[in-house]
């Protein structure tokens, strides 16, 4: 069983395709496109994702013979596995920065509350600007990655309006999240208002690829602070891994429900 799963010919083909994509993406390398005071940073992981989508059998029919639904499912499992060494690498940047991290400790802990910013920014937009219904609750209560999706699935079921909201943001985040997190931090850094340590620790949002894009962009913008940026971002990401689910369950989701009842009392 385990041999057939790990070493089947179709799975080897998948790894081969990934290897080819990765080599091409890394050969292109990091590109900086200056726009005004800031710069848009294009990272190899973005090209890799784009190439993956281009070859995806739902886009290019020709690959469907190799990339069967089973192999695609396996590729989904490989995401989690392939991101693990990256997470480990991030951990090794935290230890050497431990003094800077302890010094920034209060900020590091308090900025976890900032993850409720999803509600502050997205709730009014969804309810008042776009006139959305109960989808809002699932959509805006968190950044809607896997653990948050699981929480909504358990509370409402994914076939509920709340479930549609969380799945919509999840799917959109999967498609454009890396891109957004590659451009947003550099633009905000370009405003020249915020401490680089604040920009770095905010990268830890609990998603490996968003963390990678965010820190990739920041270290390209401020290369002489690379170690500090990675250390703080890594520490913050670990905190989010540990606290994210509980903040969602006990604070963010009840708060969003309460706000929604206040905003749309007629629907309850």
């Amino acid at each position, binding site marked *: 069983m385990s041999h057939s799963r790990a070493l089947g010919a179709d799975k080897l083909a998948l790894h081969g395709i990934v290897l080819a994509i990765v080599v091409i993406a890394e050969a292109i390398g990091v590109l900086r496109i200056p726009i005004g005071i800031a710069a848009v940073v294009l990272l190899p992981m973005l090209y890799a994702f784009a190439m993956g989508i281009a070859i995806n059998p739902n886009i290019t029919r020709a690959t469907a013979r190799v990339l069967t639904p089973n192999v695609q*499912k396996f590729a989904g499992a490989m995401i989690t596995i392939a991101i693990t060494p990256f997470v480990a690498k991030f951990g*090794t940047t935290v230890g050497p920065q431990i003094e800077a991290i302890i010094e*920034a400790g209060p900020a590091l802990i308090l900025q976890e509350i900032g993850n409720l910013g999803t509600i502050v920014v997205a709730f009014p937009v969804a309810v008042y600007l776009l006139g959305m219904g109960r989808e809002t609750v699932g959509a805006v209560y968190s950044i809607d990655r896997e653990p948050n999706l699981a929480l909504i699935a358990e509370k409402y079921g994914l076939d509920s309006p709340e479930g549609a909201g969380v799945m919509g943001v999840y799917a959109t985040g999967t498609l454009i999240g890396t891109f957004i997190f590659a451009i947003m931090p550099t633009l905000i850094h370009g405003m020249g208002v915020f401490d680089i340590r604040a920009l770095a620790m905010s990268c830890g949002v609990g998603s490996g690829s968003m963390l990678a894009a965010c820190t990739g962009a920041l270290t390209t913008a401020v290369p002489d602070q690379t170690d500090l940026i990675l250390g703080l971002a*890594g520490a913050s990401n670990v905190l989010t891994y540990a606290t994210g689910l509980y903040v969602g369950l006990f604070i963010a989701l009840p708060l969003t429900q309460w706000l929604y009842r206040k905003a749309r009392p007629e629907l309850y």
Partner: protein
Amino acid sequence: MANVENLTLEIETIDERKVNIGETAALLLVACAIGTMANYVATGVGALEAFPGMAILFLCSVAGLIMARFVPLALPSVAWVSLFAIVITIPGVPGSAWVVEQAGKINFLSLATPALAYGGLALSAKEFAIARKSGWKIVIVAICVMLGTYLGSVVIADLTLRVFS
């Protein structure tokens, strides 16, 4: 196109207590091999030179999986993996200087590239369909959500850093 009528994602809530460690470790080796290649193309650091660093990352990953499997604490394996990697690199811990030096030969961005390649290939008909069907409103909300979590943290962190320094 697969069954687009029933647009509910089957989320794989992977129960980390049921993970087959041997199989996952084998797949981790594959990921590390691809990561080594990515690192070589990006930085010119050869496989032999990168080997100790890569081996450290691999061992942290496996140790994290084992902890998530056997320790009765609701911590995901990535949290354990991070903790191991942090502890062995804290100054003063025996061998930490060597570990930091070896891990320093691995470019962190190169390790994210394979995961995103798998990610692009893994997108299912359902995920495309959900993104399409959710429409432009959800795209706007999703961007606001990402902006909100980042900016919210930045503002609080920045203010706290000012107060405490």
